[in-house]
Structure formats: C-alpha cells, structure tokens
C-alpha cells in the first residue's frame, strides 16, 4: 500500500466502540486521529484542527451528520468526507452525495475496504493540492441576482449602497441561501448549518442576520423580494434568472 504520509483524520461518530475501533486502525496506518462524539463538537474540532479527512456518521445527537456535512461544505468544498452510516439505501446515499460527500459506506462495513477508501481519498487530496481553482465547484466564484453582484471568493458585493465587504458569516449564509435557492429553509436548519448550533440557541440570531442581508441587497428592505419570510416556516431565497447578455 502506498503511504500518503501522516495525515490528520477527524472521526465524528457517537458510538464509542466504533469510534475507538476506527481510531485504532487509522492510527496503526500511521495517521493522527481525533474523535468527536456529536455534531457540535465535531464542527468545533474541524475548525480548530483542520483535519485532512472527516469520517462522518449520520445519526448523531444534536446536529445530525448531514447538517454537519452541509455546514462544512459552505466553507470548504474540497475537504474529503466519508460517510459511514447504518442507513445504506440508495435514497440515503443519493442524499449524502447531493450534499457533497466524497464517499459513502454502509455499516457494517469491511475494514480493509474502509482503509483503502480512506487512503485513496487522502491521496487524491495531495494531488489536487497542487492544481488550483479550476475544478468544478459547488459554488460559482461570483453570483448575481437583481442588481446585486456578489464575489464569494473575495467576500465583496456590489449592491445598491455600492461596494461592501462581507464578513465570513455573511458569506456562509449567502452560500447557504444560494445553494437552496427556491427551497424554504427553517430558522432551525439555518442555525444548525450556518452556525453549527443546536436548537437551544435563540433563533432571533437568524432573523437579525436576514435583516442585515435585506438591508444590503433588497431595494426596499421592508418589502423584500429576494429574502422572503415564510410564515411559521423560516426563509426562502429566490430571484428571477438574470437576463443573458
């Protein structure tokens, strides 16, 4: 087997036995392994430790695995993520893949297969690291709607008030809305994916943020066209397709 060097791997799995068994095997393979037992601490560890690969379970306490995946994908589209789940039906796999997972293994899995897939994913990252931003991505670099033009790469936007600089959180939230254009998002979902919090956190945070986005991008922030509220649901982002020029 080809050695891809010492890599940091984060395992997000709530079953201690499985998590430790995975850690044991990956450590024996020569990797540095860390375990998070729920979604919230998983996201925190992903931020602080910058792993090269995440092994993710779906049924997790607090924030579920798919929300963790979507949250990570808002900021990092390339980090290899492998889902390891008891849910193995084609629908579940497709769901995972549409949210941008790289590989999907159903439990119970074969250890050798798991290790080979992990090595393969790690190897692919080290090759991709050399090329630059030309590969297809989930998000375009720039995005336009109405008279607004957002540069997601440079975190700037041209809107009715002129050019503004967006904070990291604003970019993240915009990406979430863009990825779910035309689909309603509940406040809870937004909080989970956009901030990595569970339901205990006050959903007013979301409202305040949307108010800010409206101030930037709506012609009349009190009569929103793009970031609309849905009664007792949450928010929906939509716009007409820009005229092709």
């Amino acid at each position, binding site marked *: 087997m080809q050695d891809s060097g010492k890599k940091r791997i984060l395992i997000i799995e709530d079953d201690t*036995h499985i998590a*430790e*068994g*995975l850690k*044991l095997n990956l450590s024996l393979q020569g990797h540095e392994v860390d375990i998070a037992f729920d979604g919230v601490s998983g996201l925190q560890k992903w931020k602080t430790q910058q792993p090269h690969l995440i092994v993710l379970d779906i049924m997790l306490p607090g924030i579920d695995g798919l929300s963790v995946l979507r949250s990570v994908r808002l900021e990092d589209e390339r980090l290899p993520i492998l889902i390891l789940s008891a*849910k193995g039906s084609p629908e579940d796999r497709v769901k995972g893949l549409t949210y941008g997972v790289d590989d999907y293994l159903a439990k119970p*899995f074969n250890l*050798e297969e798991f290790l080979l897939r992990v090595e393969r994913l790690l190897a692919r990252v080290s090759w991709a690291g050399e090329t630059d931003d030309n590969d297809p991505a989930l998000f375009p670099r720039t995005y336009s709607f109405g008279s607004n033009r957002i540069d997601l790469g440079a975190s700037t936007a041209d809107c009715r008030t002129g050019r503004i600089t967006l904070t990291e959180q604003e970019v993240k939230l915009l990406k979430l809305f863009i990825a779910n254009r035309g689909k309603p998002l509940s406040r809870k979902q937004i909080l989970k994916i956009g901030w990595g919090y569970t339901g*205990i956190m006050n959903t007013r945070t979301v409202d305040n943020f949307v108010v800010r986005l409206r101030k930037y991008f709506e012609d009349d922030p009190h009569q929103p066209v793009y970031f609309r509220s849905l009664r007792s649901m949450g928010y929906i982002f939509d716009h007409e397709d820009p005229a092709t020029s």
Partner: protein
Amino acid sequence: MITRLKWFFHPVFIFVFSILALALSLFLYIYWYIEVSTGLKAAVHRYNLDPQQILEAQTWVVILVLSILVGLILAGIFIIFVYSQKMARLNRLQHEFINNFTHELKTPVTSLKLYLETFLKHELPRMEQAKYIGYMLQDVERLADNISHILNLARIETKTFGGDFLPADLVETLRQFYQNNRHLFRGCDIQIHSPSGNPFFYNINAPLFEMLVMNILNNAVKYNDSEKPKVDIYFMNKNAKLHIRFEDNGIGIEKADAKKIFRKFYQTKRPDGFSPKGSGLGLYLVQNIARMHRGKVIAEKRRNEKGSVFTLILPLHPKHA
C-alpha cells in the same frame, strides 16, 4: 419518495365531507317530509278526514327514527375514522421503529465486525486485546438485549408468557434482584427504602416482574447525565394501593411525553444532546407487564429536583390478585 395524496383523498377531508353530506341529507329528509305532510294535511282538510288519526303522532316518530338512524351512521363513520387514523399512526411508528431498530442492531454488529477484522489484521498487545474484547462482550450484550426485547414483546402480546403468579414479598424481591444484577449498575447509587419495614406480599410472575424493574432501572441510568446516576426506590401504602416509586436524577421527562412514552415504538425527541437510542419498546413492555399484574405505571417529572419518577401502582387485594 412517497407521492403525496391529493387533498380530496385525505381521510380528514373524506370524513368531514361525509358528515356534511349526512347532516344535509338528514335536514332534507325532515324538510321534505314536513313539506309532504303539510300537503297531506291540506288534502286531509279538503276531503274532511279525521286529521288526528293520520298525522300528528307520526311526524315526530318519523323525525325521531330518522335522527337516530343518522346518528348511528355518524357514530359508525366516526369510529371507522378514529380507527383508521390509529392504524395510520401505528404504521408510521412501525416504519420508524424498523429504521431505529436496524440502527440498534447494526451498531453493535458493526463494532463487533470491526474489532474481529482488526484482530485478524494486527497482532495487538495482550492489554489492548483485553480492552477491545471487553468492548465486544458489551456489544454482544447489547445485541442480546435487543433480541430479547423483540422476543419478549411477541410473547407478552400474544399472552403466551409461561409461569405462574405466586405470592412474594416485593421488597425482598427487589433487594434480591439488585443483588443479582449489581454488576449491571456499577457506578450507580441504587437504594431501596421501605419505611414501614413490613413485607409487601403480592402475586407476581417473577421473570416478568424482573423485566419490569430492569427496564425502569435501565432507563433511569441510560437517560441520565448526572455524574453519579442515583435511583431511590420507595415503598408506600396509599388508598389501599401499593405505590412503588422509582425516583432518579436523570434528564427528566416532559409533561407532554409522560403518557406517550408508554406507547409502542414511541421515542421522545429532544432538542438537546439526548437523542433516542432505544427500541421504543421498553416502557411499552413495562406498562403491559404492570397490567398483567392488575396494576399500572405512571411517569412524571420530579417536582423540585432534576429527574423523573416512575410509580408502579398495584391494588392491595393480594388474595385474588
């Protein structure tokens, strides 16, 4: 994805629609009947017949009979409606149960397979081996628990559970049970209090009764985030009934869930960390066993402290229990 039912096929719509149709038809029956009978009255009048004989009494009888019949039909529709809603709910729960239960079965199997393959692949030092073999044993235990839950469920539901109901002192039975299963509750503080000091005799089926106690204690420890899980068991006499209270210092129980948790397949959904990790059968079994002993179990939140209380209430008529 399941295609969603058209709104006019929805059972609630059909139910409301048929009730409206029935009410309208009742109204029309009566309306037309009265119309016809006034016509008749006019005819009687014209031909100078004796009105008393043909009319008066009949009108009300007809209306009464019609109303009763329609009422019966309405009641029938209502019962069928409730029944079908119940079936639908049970179906959904069963589906959820299968999903959850496969997860419950697959997790220990995954862990077992993982460690066995690891042992095949690597030569581990004895100390580590022992630790992982310990894990595997726990997983086997978990699997065995899940399997026995399913089997017990089948036996209790079909009432084919063997064994007799024999008188036993419940305080002593509980003490014995705790002594025999101490290893399962390591690190927990379980106390049995019987203030009167008297024995409480009751006719029990020992294996079933132990299953009941085991499930309540297991839950008290499983749904517990305190540093040291603690369960106090109190024996009390109240209104000619024996109350056995199991008070724990766990995560407690929401008022809305207090009744529902005894439903088959029901699992609480909590916004914080504690996601359901069970079969959804434990408390259903508990309630069924309590009923087989002519008693019942109620759950509530502890009033001033953290935790929940499960009370087993048994009628104190030991002679024919």
